[in-house]
């Protein structure tokens, strides 16, 4: 029998990079993020260094993107689907994320911040 803590949930990730895994552990904290023209909610996300989390995205209107360039990770966020991204920040700081699929007049304002603490 596979121990509960070793059980893996396969997640439908659109994109992964670097230390980002394609599967999430069951105990990973899930943070739900809603995207709609022209904002992310929440737009200020606090994480702990070394703590794996799953960012669970939903777009309420059109195709959006989530890009966290400092960690070289991104994913599309298609409307009508849930997109999950497992992420383990490996350094402390404030990091901007943006929508990187042009979505309309105020697309340039669609951004947020991930705060990683020790």
């Amino acid at each position, binding site marked *: 029998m596979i121990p509960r803590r070793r059980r893996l949930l396969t997640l439908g990730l659109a994109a992964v990079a670097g230390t980002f895994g394609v599967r999430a552990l069951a105990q990973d904290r899930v943070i739900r993020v809603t995207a709609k023209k022209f904002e992310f909610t929440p737009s200020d996300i606090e994480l702990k260094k070394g703590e794996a989390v799953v960012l669970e995205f939903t777009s309420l209107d059109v*195709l959006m993107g989530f*890009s966290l360039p400092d960690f070289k990770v991104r994913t599309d966020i298609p409307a009508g689907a849930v997109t999950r991204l497992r992420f383990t920040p490996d350094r402390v700081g404030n990091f901007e994320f943006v929508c990187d699929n042009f979505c309309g007049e105020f*697309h340039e304002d669609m951004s947020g911040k991930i705060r990683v603490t020790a």
Partner: protein
Amino acid sequence: MTQAIDRREFLKLAGLGGAVFVSGLSGCAGMGGAKQEDFYFVQLSDTHWGFKGPALNPDADGTLQKAVAAVNALSFEPDFIVFTGDLTHTTDDPAERRRRLSQFRDIVGGLKNKNVRFMPGEHDASLDNGQAWKEFFGASYYSFDHKGVHFVAIDNVSDASARIGEAQLAWLKDDLGKQDKDARIVVFTHRPLFDLMPQWDWATRDGAQAIDILMPYSNVTVFYGHIHQEHHQMTGHIAHHSAKSLIFPLIAPGSAPKRAPVPWDAAQPYRGLGFRGVEAENRKLDITEYPVVKA
């Protein structure tokens, strides 16, 4: 590897109201290749026709016309004029998008020089994959030759994800494949091809592939827009020069946590807005920046 160009290299040009920057095809004196005739072109960018925002530009309905008048008033006739994207400000309404494109075309029809090249920006093209823009201005990527220089226009905006795309990259490789490795090549595009500031969406998702295709060519200069300010950077031996906007400036890359426009300054109206002239002479490109309205 990228490297910012030292702005101290700028030389003020007395009486012209601009600054000159020697770039690009320089450094090749004595090199082989076909003879190049001197010529001059003008780059305008990010006119955002249809934008409304008095705090940023209370003359949004008149700045483009002033730019047309300023180009017409240049002391010498350019060989051609190029607009490097964001001709119009975006709208969700397809009919309004076409109305803005039509109005833009009518206004720039006032340019005395009728040899005008156009490129889309994401505000023109990203919401309908360039459909409306192409109805007015034709192909969104193309190449042409002028007096010994090969010009290539790359579309990195019709795909809303800021990709050039495999088909266009294949076309680019094929197009450049017909050029000698020391050919003089000038690229026009809207977004930076390199990762200038991805945190501000100032990048092209697959721009590195385009740079890889350009890299074997020893004389390449890129002119682009998108960031509403002058910026000069090298990727290896390739020089990249962004142009000022004709609607409102944006703050310098990395100067604040978030990208932001520079508010209108009534004491210095039109500050930071302008266009550039590029003179190809003696196998160099001399860039002169002009304000849209002389101070």
